[in-house]
């Protein structure tokens, strides 16, 4: 009777462990997929804004038959908000790449003991970095597109339209990456229940 009871208990425990491992491996697969997508989003946002540049020559005046032209260059380095955007997305893509590598080959020997608790904290920091960069660039882009009549700042997007379009595309990519990174952070916090020792 005791042997039968012990056997069923062990079989039940085995079954529970197998169910938990299969569901946890499904969560692992979803996490890897999400991290790949987030890596793609942040890398593309950083690259699109990094190579954002437009030069335009406009005719300012006509003297006789010769035209006086002025060249208008727009580069992302002119605006500190966009510089921060590129740096933030670069750091976030580096973090995503590192976490992807760690989820494949495990953490390095030195950090094996603190890895399960350090990864959600790093994911939280990643969320903060990407959200800061994306929102700063979004509000700066809104200022460039609409101007601010109270401060006598004219809008500039009508003169450098493809710079604004590419900047907008980079911001959209960064916001998609932000949503994915928030989901990744929530999943890695939920996954901590597996190691719960409270």
């Amino acid at each position, binding site marked *: 009777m005791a042997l039968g009871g012990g056997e069923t208990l062990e079989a039940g425990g085995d079954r529970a462990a197998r169910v938990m491992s299969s569901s946890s491996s499904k969560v692992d697969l979803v996490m890897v997929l999400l991290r790949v997508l987030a890596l793609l989003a942040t890398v593309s946002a950083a690259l699109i804004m990094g190579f954002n540049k437009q030069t335009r020559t406009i005719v300012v005046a006509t003297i006789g038959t010769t035209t006086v032209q002025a060249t208008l260059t727009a580069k992302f380095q002119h605006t500190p*908000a966009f510089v921060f955007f590129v740096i933030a997305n670069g750091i976030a893509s580096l973090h995503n790449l590192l976490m992807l590598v760690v989820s494949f080959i495990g953490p390095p020997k030195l950090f094996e003991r603190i890895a399960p608790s350090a990864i959600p904290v790093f994911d939280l920091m990643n969320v903060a970095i990407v959200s800061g960069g994306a929102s700063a660039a979004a509000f700066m882009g809104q200022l460039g597109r609409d101007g601010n009549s109270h401060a*006598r700042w004219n809008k500039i997007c009508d003169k450098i339209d493809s710079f604004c379009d590419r900047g907008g595309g980079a911001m959209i990519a960064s916001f998609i990456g932000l949503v994915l990174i928030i989901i990744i952070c929530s999943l890695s916090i939920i996954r901590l229940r597996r*190691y719960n020792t409270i």
Partner: protein
Amino acid sequence: MSFSKRIPIFLLRLLALAATISATLIMVTSRDSAQVFNVKFEAKYTNSPTFTYFVLMNAIASGYTLILLFFPTKCSFGHLILIFDLIVALLLDSSISACIAIGQVGKKGNSHAGWLPICGQVPRFCDHVTGAIIAGFVAALVYFLILVYSLHNLINLFSLKN
């Protein structure tokens, strides 16, 4: 939950409440007017959607912190509180980042876009906005600490084994 364990997070939430309320109030009371060549130049926080967003986010965060001060830490809503903490910290972080970006343009201008700095004409508005930004930055930092502490309370971070 023993009283001594509740003290740190209570103090952190109190600090966050003070920071968010002061950021909201300082930004709302920022106002200056100047007379330049017979043109009245009035600066309020509603002139820029960024500052309106900042005031809104800090008001939401202060209301949320006030409600949460009266909640015990280890109740059954622990996971839900963590999610709401994450959302509020995210909103505070994005609002302070946008304000710093726009404030930098207001202080230094942008010569490439032909935007002149406005801090010379409305210095009191500039000082108020600077104070509000500092308070908002403290609020965002404290909320990040609250988040890590909330996570630690829910799932003991020091005793995890691989």
